[in-house]
């Protein structure tokens, strides 16, 4: 679609949202990227101006705008703090899609998104293969964290300390049907999200233990497509829409009360971005999206707000302590702040110690980390210092992407602080409570 007029016309459809920005610049106070670089094109105000200028043909360089637009964690800190209520994420995601439509998707991304991500079985196969070959290339670094690093110089892995890919996707063995399809009680469909499914299966195991304890009937399908956020962030609306529809087909097969995910990003994507970014699909599909989106809950929120876990706080073991990091996609996108903390307190195994600035972004930002690793690390170092200052032996967070970033940070710093999902902490305590 190398038609500049079409690009301009489509960008102008965002005008009503862009014009809301009064250039007050308050986003500078909260943007984790701007805090590192101090460059106006890195903060929401600057990016909004660039998109607007492109739409008015004041700037005629879509590539330059895309480059700057892509340099964003999509953490939503700016939107949450915006005095004028500008829908920053919506403008950014739609502009990314429009400009990518004009410039075309990069061949690598095209191969990954359209070749693998949109085809769950092939994607599982690829990761299974990678899991098998990662051994010889990796070296263990930190026992507590379970982190590894590259054994040899690798342009892809770089200096990252990572958690190895699981030998098999969790849902292969985790798949299950409702035990009492016609029975009473709460029925949930479980959506682990790719990171839990393929890198942190222990979180899904913990969730199953918790569901069993609370007698929640669970359904796990044998195929779980990605929620679409990586494609959406790269402006690939086609793959995103394809994945949304695939998920709808799978999760509409069985009736349930809630779709539960332990991934902050998947929850925010399904709850907020699916309805926002499927506006070009037929109305019937949008209704289906709305229905599934309304049933979707973060697992912390579900346990605390629906199952009322944690009404009685347990006395904590004074010898151990845990600190909690607020994932942007829980706190800023969904307003989920207290529930994960309540869950940790309900476990009673560790004293909860608040870190300074728990809401500060860890710097992961999904593909941001892949493209801007050095900056991502720099942003993360502030988080690392806040975690370390608490002296806690565990850091909990409700987002597997944050868990990976924090693992990398702690591992580089040589700290033996374990990284856990609140659900893992709660599950561990089952039997003791």
């Amino acid at each position: 679609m190398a038609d500049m007029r079409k690009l301009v016309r489509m960008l102008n459809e965002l005008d009503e949202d862009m014009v809301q920005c009064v250039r007050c610049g308050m986003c500078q106070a909260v943007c984790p990227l701007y805090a590192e670089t101090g460059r106006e094109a890195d903060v929401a105000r600057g990016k909004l101006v660039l998109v607007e200028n492109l739409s008015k043909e004041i700037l005629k360089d879509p590539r330059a705008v895309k480059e700057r637009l892509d340099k964003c964690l999509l953490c939503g800190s700016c939107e949450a703090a915006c005095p004028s209520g500008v829908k920053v994420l919506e403008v950014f995601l739609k502009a990314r899609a429009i400009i990518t439509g004009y410039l075309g998707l990069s061949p690598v991304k095209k191969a990954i998104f359209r070749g693998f991500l949109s085809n769950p079985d092939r994607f599982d196969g690829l990761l299974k293969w990678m899991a098998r070959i990662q051994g010889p290339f990796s070296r263990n670094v930190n026992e507590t964290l379970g982190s590894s690093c590259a054994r040899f110089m690798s342009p892809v892995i770089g200096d990252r300390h990572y958690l190895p890919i699981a030998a098999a996707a969790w849902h292969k063995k985790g798949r299950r049907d409702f035990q009492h399809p016609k029975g009473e009680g709460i029925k949930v469909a479980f959506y682990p999200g790719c990171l839990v499914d393929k890198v942190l299966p222990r979180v899904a195991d913990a969730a199953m233990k918790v569901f069993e304890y609370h007698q929640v009937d669970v359904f796990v399908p044998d195929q779980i497509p990605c929620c679409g956020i990586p494609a959406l962030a790269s402006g690939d609306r086609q793959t995103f829409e394809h994945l949304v529809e695939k998920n709808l087909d799978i999760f509409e097969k069985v009736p349930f009360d809630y779709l539960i995910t332990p991934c902050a990003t998947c929850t925010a994507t399904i709850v907020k971005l699916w309805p926002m970014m499927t506006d070009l699909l037929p109305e019937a599909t949008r209704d289906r999206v709305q229905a599934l989106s309304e049933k979707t809950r973060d697992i912390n929120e579900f346990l605390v707000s629906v199952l009322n876990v944690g009404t009685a706080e347990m006395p904590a073991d004074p010898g151990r302590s845990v600190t909690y990091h607020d994932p942007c996609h829980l706190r800023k996108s969904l307003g989920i702040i207290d529930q994960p903390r309540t869950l940790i307190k309900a476990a009673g195994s560790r004293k909860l110690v608040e870190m300074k600035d728990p809401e500060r972004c860890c710097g992961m930002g999904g593909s941001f980390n892949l493209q801007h690793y050095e900056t991502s690390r720099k942003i993360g170092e502030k988080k690392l210092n806040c975690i370390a200052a608490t002296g806690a032996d565990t850091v909990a967070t409700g987002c597997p992407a944050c868990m990976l970033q924090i693992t990398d940070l702690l591992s580089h710093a040589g700290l033996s602080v374990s990284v856990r999902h609140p659900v893992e902490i709660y599950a561990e305590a089952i039997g003791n409570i």
Partner: protein
Amino acid sequence: MTNKNLISEFARILGKENVMAEEADRQAYSYDSAMLPPVVPGLVVRPTSSQQLSHTIRLCSLHGLPLTVRGSGTNLSGGTIPSSSESVVVVTNGLNRIIELNARDLYAVVEPGVITADFAKAAAMKGLFYPPDPGSQTVSTLGGNVAENAGGLRGLKYGVTRDYVMGMEFFDAGGELIKAGSKTVKCVSGFNLCDLMVGSEGLLGVYSQIILKLIPPPVAQQAMMAIFDTVESASEAVSAIIANRIIPCTLEFLDNFTIRTVEDFRHAGLPVDAGALLLIEVDGHPAQVEDEAAKVKEICRQNQAKKIQVAQSVEEKELIWQARRDALPALARLKPTTILEDATVPRSQLPAMISRIKAIAEKYRLIIGTFGHAGDGNLHPTILTDKRDTEEYSRVEAAIDEIFDAALGLGGTLSGEHGIGLAKCKYMENETNRATIEYSKRLKSVLDPKNILNPGKMFGGRDDG
């Protein structure tokens, strides 16, 4: 800027990462928070040391390049919009060290790019108080505050930025280091260059270090909200409080339109039928606070306050100030474009000014919400519009002209705290006179013979400058 040699010379001094020459990056520095036409600069540089700053100015001077110094670009009068497409924008947020925080002698030395709220927090950590609190304090830089002589909510009792600048080092138009003021409480060595530099809007020099005064914090505070049927009785109460020798640290005003808008936004239970609200805080020694709070309450009652809510807890106090903080964001959400003015009148003229603003809003069929610092007569009439609606926007411009006429007619000033910049230079002569403008221009032409320091601001066109 097409001159590649010059760009690489800047890159040599500042490092490549601190020189922004690409069109997209330059466009991101073409505006500030004032609703004025953007000007794309020729180059943007971001020095990270005093030395780099000095070299930058020398290079600009050598090539006769105009330069506009920019902190966080939250200027509300267009002072940080580049003067021309040749301009070099000098971003100061890389100069952000607090060099010294001296609790014995109650001063601090800072670089110009330190964020106001970060500095106030650092001072508080040492048990000290930096009072100036402009609305943009979480992002504004101290350099920007000094250049604009920024005010804030505490102006009535604690004064404005000017009252806290003890001294500074700055570079003149040729990049020479000039020293003004000192770290001492008293200093009469030479001209008072320091006061000349405060509020000079980047026209006379570029700050490299600023010495700021700190004071001991008040021990106790008491906040309250007084509800009035009419604006007149609220402003009578303001006058009476001051006449009774009480200077609250904050004395803020919200008109009925603003009250209703904030209530729609927050649903905190504000009285939507009230003509005006006063949000008042007294601070100081606990005994004094208790005494003054009782008197303020009594005075409000004598002036027909319908109801007075005294904050009984931290949460209640927070609720009162939340209403004030919500004023601008709540208004801003009603329409796409928000224009915040800061015409200021002597305190006693507050009711007259408020009724003039109301009449202007009706005459030009515009929505204007008014709130602001009643205690010091500094109002923020906030015009809600849509800049895309050119017909309405021309009425907005006419209304702004009339608001300024009204303020000047009542013995007031164009700007209490936002500065003149580009937005108000055409009214300057109305407030002063021709001779004053000429005097200021002569001063500028002697100190900046090549006219490179933020030309075109304060008195208009560059050629004219």
